[in-house]
């Protein structure tokens, strides 16, 4: 049996490195849509990180939070896209 705790904490740290890569794009992005793409990618990676974290500690509550975070980040992405598009809400 693998050591679930250590393995999944390592996975979470590796995912944090991916978040840093996407964060560089958020900071440098020449246009606003570039930044939104970076934020969207960060959201997905954070959701996966939460699920891995919940597995490491065997706590279901982290995964519940991940589900809610997924739905809320979807709404925020749609809202940002609508804002970029201009026009009436």
């Amino acid at each position: 049996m693998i050591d679930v705790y250590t393995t999944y904490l390592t996975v979470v740290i590796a995912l944090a490195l991916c978040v840093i890569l996407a964060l560089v794009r958020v900071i440098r992005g020449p246009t606003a849509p570039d930044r939104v793409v970076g934020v969207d990618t960060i959201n997905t990676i954070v959701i996966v990180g939460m699920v891995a974290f919940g597995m490491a500690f065997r706590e279901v509550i982290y995964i519940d939070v991940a589900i809610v975070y997924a739905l809320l980040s979807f709404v925020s992405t749609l809202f940002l896209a609508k804002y970029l598009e201009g026009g009436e809400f």
Partner: protein
Amino acid sequence: MIFDYLIYVFLGIGLFFNVLAGVGLLRFPDVYTRLHAGTKCTTFGSIFLIGSVILIGLKLWWEKDTNGSVLALHSALALVAILLTNPVGAHAIARAAHRSGVKPVRAIADHLAESPPLQTGEKTDKKQQPQEEGGK
């Protein structure tokens, strides 16, 4: 034993594609190609990372641990949420980028810019409702 290697393979594939998404975001030249990297790779990576969690949960359930089944079920719901929301978000960003005037770099054809402007307002509000239906 084989189970352990399966978990490691799943984790390896998932992490590889998530890192690839980050590198792709940095390397590609414009918004649309970055969306290709940011959407496809993170979705595929999430399928494998969450799939490994589901497999471990099912194994715990097989060993009569109730916590395992709850973990597997909730992770599967999180995966469904990601699969439904990710492409819709990408579509929304791409549409917003094109309407706010970002041109695709090095494009050899752009039928959307040549076509007459599409309707906005009333029609676009209606469009988001089918996604809500899918989320149920």
